[in-house]
């Protein structure tokens, strides 16, 4: 097994007396989709926030390529190559689709703080933004104001912005939420395509999609890891079966 | 300064703090719970004082004047909420700043037209006009102590109202999530009208019972406005407890500041606010 690009050790987050994430250790590797599932309130989104730096962990380590990044701010972690999408669409609604992607692309260049040149004058930023939009299947919408997109398209834009920052680790928080079957299918294809050169952590409820893309599966309950392994191992796990009273349908919970 | 005088200054500071709480309590509600930046808070305070003065000179009795004036200010508050503020809840805070800035000008001019530009005094009610001797030459006015008492009562009542009653629960829920409360079938519009009217009435009430102490003057509102914001912000938005703590802190800081470092006394409150907010950006008792 190759060295994981990102791993956590005993990652814990407490909110007052509530333990939202408890002693979670997992790893992500390039070429692999690591899916985290579990019922609502299991701590999946909190886990994502800990990895992306949106929240500081209470205890434990987050190691990115050998460096402990726990407690760094989200922009620092982002610049280290960890990109994330949000469960609730989190884009710049008043801007055009292209500007959304362009801003994301801009964050990765030394031009970012340039004060005089026109923002659109940087070919490589524009190219990266366009590429990200194309990859997410939004190339034809570039000129639209983001607020006017359909829900599914906004989810795609969310991913496109994430891609435009050229991350090596992708943290995708329920990218399929609220999507129609056709859009979902396209997203699954996109995730598969991205797997080759990204390490992906995916949080998802749609089990068809989960089993379509997952290389590894982690089940979280009450902030703890219940089981982790290949999809087959997890499916066979007595603990998971017990917790979910034996039906994989229940995993939708 | 000997110990006795240090203790008296301590009393002064605490008493002044109570007064500040009284004056800012209405703002705690409107600003803290409804999230409205109300620059006209000082104007309501002024309106209260002028009402107390004009009604007291008509009826000859401050208590009667207050009893008549409070319903008037509640009505004023409800009308303002329904006519003006209601339209701004979903908009940026800046529009509230703009609207209430306009209101200041309007109230100040209406005051000038209705009541003139004179300085007026309201007599301290005879029952409370005594003073308690502290040292050979210094005594403490009973009315000030009475105000402190009213202030404590008010703080307690507000605390109970917000923390312990069903209405308070709805208010708190409405503060954190308007849509959710609405979907529970609670008439959020009515609650907002009510809370705003309470805020106006509290500001005016402060002006009324403070009138015998402070005298009634044009622009008295703008003098208290900023300090009220400081109280609410230091205390933490939406916290009655915080407002009380902040009031007492400011009261003590100003009292001892004026005595010990008069050169920079004017700055002290703001230095205090800056320190608190840099240390705890959400205020002493604010929610993160």
């Amino acid at each position: 097994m190759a060295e994981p690009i990102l791993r956590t050790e005993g990652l814990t987050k407490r909110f007052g007396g509530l333990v939202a994430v408890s002693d979670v250790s997992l790893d992500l590797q390039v070429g692999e989709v690591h899916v985290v599932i579990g019922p609502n309130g299991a701590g999946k989104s909190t886990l994502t926030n800990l990895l992306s730096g949106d929240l500081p962990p209470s205890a434990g380590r987050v190691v990115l390529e050998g460096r402990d990044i726990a407690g760094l701010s989200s922009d620092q972690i982002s610049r280290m190559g960890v990109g994330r999408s949000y469960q609730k669409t989190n884009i710049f609604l008043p801007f055009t689709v292209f500007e959304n992607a362009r801003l994301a692309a801009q964050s990765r260049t030394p031009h970012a703080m340039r004060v005089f040149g026109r923002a659109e004058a940087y070919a490589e930023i524009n190219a990266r933004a366009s590429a990200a939009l194309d990859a997410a299947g939004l190339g034809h919408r570039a000129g639209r104001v983001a607020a006017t997109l359909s829900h599914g398209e906004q989810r795609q834009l969310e991913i496109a912005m994430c891609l435009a920052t050229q991350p090596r680790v992708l943290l995708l928080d329920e990218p399929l939420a609220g999507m129609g079957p056709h859009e979902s299918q396209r997203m699954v294809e996109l995730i598969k395509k991205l797997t080759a050169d990204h390490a992906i952590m995916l949080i998802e409820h749609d089990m068809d999609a989960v089993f379509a893309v997952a290389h590894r599966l982690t089940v979280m309950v009450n902030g703890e890891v219940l089981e982790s392994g290949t999809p087959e191992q997890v499916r066979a796990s007595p603990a998971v079966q017990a917790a979910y009273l034996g039906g994989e349908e229940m995993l939708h919970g | 300064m000997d110990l006795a005088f240090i203790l008296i200054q301590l009393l002064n500071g605490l008493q002044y703090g109570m007064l500040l709480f009284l004056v800012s309590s209405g703002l705690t509600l409107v600003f803290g719970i409804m999230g409205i930046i109300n620059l006209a808070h000082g104007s309501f305070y002024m309106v209260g004082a002028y009402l107390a003065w004009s009604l007291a000179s008509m009826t000859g009795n401050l208590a009667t004047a207050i009893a008549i004036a409070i319903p008037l200010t509640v009505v004023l508050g409800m009308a303002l909420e329904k006519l003006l503020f209601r339209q701004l809840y979903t908009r940026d805070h800046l529009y509230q700043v703009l609207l209430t800035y306009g209101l200041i000008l309007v109230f100040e001019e209406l005051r000038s037209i209705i009541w003139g530009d004179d300085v007026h005094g309201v007599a301290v009610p005879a029952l409370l006009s005594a003073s308690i001797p502290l040292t050979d030459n210094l005594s403490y006015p009973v009315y000030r102590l009475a105000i402190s008492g009213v202030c404590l009562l008010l703080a307690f009542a507000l605390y109970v109202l917000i923390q312990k009653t069903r209405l308070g629960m709805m208010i708190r829920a409405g503060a954190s999530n308007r849509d959710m409360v609405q979907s529970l079938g609670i008439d959020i519009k009515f609650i907002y009208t009510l809370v705003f009217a309470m805020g106006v009435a509290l500001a005016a009430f402060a002006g009324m019972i403070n009138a015998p102490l402070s005298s009634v003057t044009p622009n008295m509102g703008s003098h208290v406005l900023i300090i009220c914001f400081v109280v609410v912000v230091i205390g933490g938005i939406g916290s009655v407890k915080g407002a009380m703590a902040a009031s007492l802190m400011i009261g003590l800081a100003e009292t001892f500041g004026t005595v010990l470092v008069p050169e920079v006394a004017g700055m002290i409150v703001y230095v205090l606010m800056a320190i608190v907010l840099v240390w705890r950006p959400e205020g002493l008792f604010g929610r993160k």
Partner: protein
Amino acid sequence: MSVNDSFDRRGFLKGSAAIAGAAAVGTALPSGMAFAQQGKLKIGLMLPYTGTFAQLGVAITNGFKLAIDERGGKLAGREIEFVTVDDESNPAKAPENVNKLVQRDKVDVVIGTVHSGVVMGMAKVLKESGTLWINPNGGAGAMTGAACAPNFFRTSFSNWQTTHALGKVLKAKGHKTAVFITWKYAAGEEMMEGFKEGFEKEGGKLVKELYTPFPQVEFQALLTEIASIKPDAVVAFFAGGGAAKFLKDYQAAGLKGKIPLYGSGFLTDGVLDAVGDAAEGVETTLHYADSLDTKKDKAFRLAYAKTFKLQPDVYAVQGYDAGQLLAAGLEAVKGNVADKAGVIKAMEAAKIDSPRGPWTLSKAHNPVQDMYLRKVVGKENKSMGVAWKGLADPARGCKL
């Protein structure tokens, strides 16, 4: 106080040059010509009509207009056109506001204002324009001190004057130590200086200067300090609402009757209705008092009350005298206001028969006037006689 420093030489010369030029034009005209048929005389009133000092602005305007009405609505035979600007007592807008009168309306004379800071802003502009200026209130020392100019006149007082005579008064009462309490701002500090100088000259000792930030009206801490210092007397300057509150607090703290309270006259002016008996017996010095019982004062008060349905106050007197002073200046040149040097000369020499008693101008164009000792009796600032005959401001730094 940097405004106490003298104006730069250049600015000073320029101002003088403007006057000299005007004088040359004036004298070049054939003398004795009647100017009554010239256009209207334009008078600019820059006073507070909104805000804290609105009341004062109105009183001054009334007094000024009364003086003109008494002359048949004309000055030296010339019709009057008034232009008013509300200065809002905002020094930040002062230069801009006075500029309206000087540049836009091209007034012949500017009357204003109440607020010291605004006065300083006006001084800057009027120094350069050389426009005739009569200040009917704002007591900033610099106006007739370091920043004085030939075209600047004041018919009220300098802050220094209002408290200087108190030194003598306190000495006469046998007080050896005193505490001065006021707001921390320029007027308060100037009054403190005026008192300190007067009191120390008499061998008294100002043991402590107490300041509270302007316009803060919470006095409890300082009253406690006064009680612990136990001076022979307390001297205070506050005005308007602050004065009313201070008087009431002083009484409520039990200090009244134990440590006698004195003050600049503004402490008890215009607030007696508001403070009940809290001011009873408080003694102050000012250039005006109630019940002066002179013929001039009686006539003035009657006329004022009849015209405006209001009782006059010291501000009305100052406004009235501004009108009288201007009349004296204009009559000497028969209404030819272009003869600025002539107007100035006549005004400098004028002996104003004021309701407050006769007064003349000092070299620096500030009134040399009697300071009355007044005592609050009932709702009156009753005159107890003259505390200082013909008190003149030292006009430090004025090179006139």
